[in-house]
């Protein structure tokens, strides 16, 4: 009897864990099922390399190059903002701030990570965009620049909290040895602590990249939505998640356009999946 209970409990935990695999396979299966039929209408190379996205035109153009570039530019912009700010605050919190300040700042950053993206989107659309038009005298406030600022702001807490974890897990003896050898605090931080925490810092940046590239509401509300290859950062773009969110509701299920949107989801998934594998690889190599 007792044995049976043991076994059934163990089985339940097994099944629960297998469920994570099932869900992941379910996600992969559903986007590939929905996305692969698009390649009856357009070749994979054309899908990826043509910048012309006119899904409802007759005949339609399903080229997502401009959407991919839009996503990458906005994400790059976000990282340009969030890496110095996130990493800077992580180093400050972990190495310079007093115990007291640290205990206040750490939970605040954790709190900020939970701010809903739609609220950031509201801020970008109703406040930042008109503000930028006034300051820079640009034709539109919905562009790469403003989307990058908002996304960057969103990613700061992610990079900051994960990098901070990595920095504070660097053994104290390393710091003490460096200081004992006559290095000052700043040199210790830059030459010893940061390099020692390199793996964790890089994975935090990659995670931030994944978050930014997949974020939907902010780019839907703030990036402007023009499917073009931009010539400067004050031009609007149409990142991949925004395209899916904006057009999914308006397509007929089973139409080429519908498949094309799932096709975009495949590309988006592949990009995030690769970034996740890279972090896995870094963590694994570090463990060795």
């Amino acid at each position, binding site marked *: 009897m007792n044995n049976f209970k043991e076994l059934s409990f163990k089985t339940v935990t097994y099944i629960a864990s297998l469920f994570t695999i099932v869900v992941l396979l379910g996600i992969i299966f559903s986007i590939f099922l929905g996305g692969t039929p698009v390649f009856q209408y357009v070749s994979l190379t054309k899908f990826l390399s043509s910048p012309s996205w006119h899904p409802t035109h007759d005949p339609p153009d399903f080229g997502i190059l*401009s959407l991919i570039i839009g996503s990458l530019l906005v994400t790059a912009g976000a990282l340009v903002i969030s890496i110095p700010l996130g990493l800077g605050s992580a180093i400050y919190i972990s190495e310079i701030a007093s115990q007291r300040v640290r205990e206040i700042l750490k939970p605040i950053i954790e709190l900020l990570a939970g701010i809903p993206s739609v609220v950031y989107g509201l801020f970008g659309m109703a406040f930042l965009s008109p503000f930028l038009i006034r300051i820079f005298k640009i034709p539109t*406030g919905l562009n790469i620049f403003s989307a990058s600022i908002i996304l960057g702001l969103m990613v700061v807490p992610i990079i900051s909290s994960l990098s901070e974890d990595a920095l504070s897990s660097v053994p104290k003896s390393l710091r003490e040895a460096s200081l004992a050898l006559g290095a000052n605090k700043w040199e210790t931080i830059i030459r010893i602590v940061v390099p020692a925490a390199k793996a964790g810092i890089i994975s935090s940046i990659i995670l931030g990249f994944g978050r930014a590239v997949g974020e939907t509401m902010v780019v839907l509300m703030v990036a402007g*939505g023009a499917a073009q290859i931009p010539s400067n950062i004050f031009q609007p773009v149409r990142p991949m998640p925004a395209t899916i969110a904006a057009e999914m509701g*308006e397509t*007929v299920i089973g139409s080429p356009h519908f498949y094309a949107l799932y096709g975009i989801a495949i590309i988006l998934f592949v990009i995030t999946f690769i970034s996740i594998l890279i972090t896995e690889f870094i963590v694994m190599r570090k463990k060795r």
Partner: protein
Amino acid sequence: MLFLKNTMKKILYYILSIMVLLTFTCSGKIKKIKIAGSTTVLPIIQAAAEEYVNLHPDTDISVRGGGSSIGILSIINQIIDIGSASRPVNKQEIEMLKNKNRDLIETAIALDAISIIIHPENPVENLTLVQLQKIYSGQIENWLALGGKDQKLVVISRDTPSGSFAVFNEIVLEQKKVRSDALMLASNNAVATNVAVTPGAIGYVGIGYVNEQVKLISISGIKPETESIMNRAYPLTRELFMYTLASTRSLAQEFIDYLLAEQGQQIVEKQGYIRIKPAGLRQ
């Protein structure tokens, strides 16, 4: 530890009792009408739903956007009771209906004019369809060419799958491709909001979305007004539709009848659209 367990238990009790309370207060026999579809028709339906529910407390209406295609598709698949659309059903959808052996009933409930709006400080008052085509297909870059100030054009359009775009595409663009640097926004309100804050902007929205913060201009001298829309003189006039299935009508039909009656048509007007039935005329 003990203190913590107790507070957690307390919190749990509170949550549970709130849940039970809510479930009890809102149980009871309530008829539901589910409506989904065009974002252009949305304000009319939402307003009418409010009034209708006031008159019929035993009915609740859920109003969802999504877009014209979602509305028509959902009604074909019997997921909802009424589908709304800012365009008539297309060939593909008629095909689908045939396959499922279902009959769709189409009711036009209001008229809409796709209205061309610009920033309020822009002096331009009128454009022709040809000029509009040139603007949206990318042949004109500056307001100077249109009789305005020396200012770069910011072209704002609706997303290509939207019903508004479909009409605009047919009448203005005549199947030319929209310029690639046009801002493609997902909703009428997003277009209106952005035209209002962008000095060089031009955009188009359903007439219900025109507000004081943007400037409405005429096409070839005709402004979208009640008269020019009702006699279809304004070139970008269109009908807004509600679709129901012949098999599952009764409750949905009551709501549509309400919309077509005087009270419903007044709501249509109040939302800024144009009534489909002349005032004072009984059904």
